[in-house]
């Protein structure tokens, strides 16, 4: 793996739109060419080099390219957007749309990320060591095709609307989540190791939610089925299985009605 290091030197007054920070874009370029890639601050277009020191050089292919982002990047959007291969490591925080529409490769953020992380994600692997904002692994507005595949792991807490319109892949929240989990989900799996609030699984068609902790208010459309023992992300325990959302339509497979599944640890 060849590494390119970006170090924030001039903070933007507003926010930076840096969708060019991706192994797919960097691969095969010289440090100078990378520094000349455009970023946007508001309506003004500038060069990446205006804000970042660029060192090291990428490999010829995205898959062999690693990007390390240093400094205060709390106000940088779109890091790793649409990336298909390679790795990005952000040492601090990142703003919105980190790994949005991601197709492959790995993103590691040591700090926090804001809203819309991994929206429309198709594949790859995102790890957030801090907290994640709202609409994690959700769908873009109006789209019924949310997260399709890949894995998102958040070591801290996540905001509201996690896995909105989720169709596939896996989201693991090691902390707590805010309201609305897997709303409109038709597939995929969300593991919450901390506590949930309310509105969990509302309007869910298919898919799985597993909650280790508490749920403030259970949705009325979830019906207790049975207790099951399962191994979940390294923990084996007994869970109460609920089917829902009974207020939603549900497809049939081989005469069997397919429900969304909500497991809560007992």
């Amino acid at each position: 793996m060849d590494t390119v290091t970006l170090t924030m030197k001039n903070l933007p007054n507003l926010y930076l739109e840096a969708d060019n920070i991706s192994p797919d874009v960097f691969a095969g370029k010289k440090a100078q060419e990378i520094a000349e890639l455009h970023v946007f601050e508001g309506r003004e277009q500038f060069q990446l080099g205006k804000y970042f020191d660029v060192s090291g050089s990428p490999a010829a292919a995205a898959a062999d390219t690693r990007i390390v982002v240093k400094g205060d990047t709390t106000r940088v959007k779109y890091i790793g957007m649409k990336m298909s291969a390679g790795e990005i490591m952000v040492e601090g925080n990142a703003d919105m749309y980190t790994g949005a529409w991601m197709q492959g490769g790995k993103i590691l953020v040591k700090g926090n990320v804001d809203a819309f992380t991994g929206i429309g994600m198709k594949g790859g692997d995102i790890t957030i060591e801090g907290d994640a904002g709202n609409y994690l692994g959700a769908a873009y507005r109006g789209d019924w095709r949310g997260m399709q595949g890949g894995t998102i792991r958040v070591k801290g807490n996540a905001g509201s609307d996690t896995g909105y319109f989720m169709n596939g892949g896996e989201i693991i929240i090691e902390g707590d989540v805010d309201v609305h989990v897997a709303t409109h989900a038709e597939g995929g799996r969300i593991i919450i190791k901390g506590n949930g609030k309310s509105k969990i699984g509302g309007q869910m068609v298919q898919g799985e939610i597993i909650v280790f902790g508490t749920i403030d208010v259970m949705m009325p459309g979830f019906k207790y089925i049975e207790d099951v023992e399962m191994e979940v992300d390294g923990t084996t325990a007994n869970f109460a299985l609920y089917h829902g959302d009974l207020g939603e339509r549900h497809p049939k497979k081989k005469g069997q009605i397919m429900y969304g599944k909500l497991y809560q640890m007992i």
Partner: protein
Amino acid sequence: MTKIALNLISGRTIQQGVAMEGGKEKDAYTKACGIIEMDPSDLKKLGAWRSTNVRVTSPHGSVVVKAVEATQGPHPGLAYIPMGPWANSVTDPNTYSTGMPTFKGVPIEIEVAMDEKVLSSVELVQKKCRGEA
């Protein structure tokens, strides 16, 4: 000093609408919107008469308004400030990434504030912006 905790919502009233169109700098607007509608049982808990000034405090700010008896009650536990700068001094700016602040369902504390004044909309907003209120 007794403090009671209530759940705050805001919204339109016909008096708010009329006063707003009559001019937000006028007293009528303050009379229509610089108030908090409380259930009689909650007024009793607070130990306040009708039409006493109270200080309303939330995690997001604080404002002095006149406490009046609910006109569209009963709604014990729920308090109502007509939409306007008084309500918005304490509403929850959290949009849950939808663009919409949480104007309804804000946990508040209320205490009697006899000798504090209810500011006009313009005074209130100007002072808040200068960090004086």
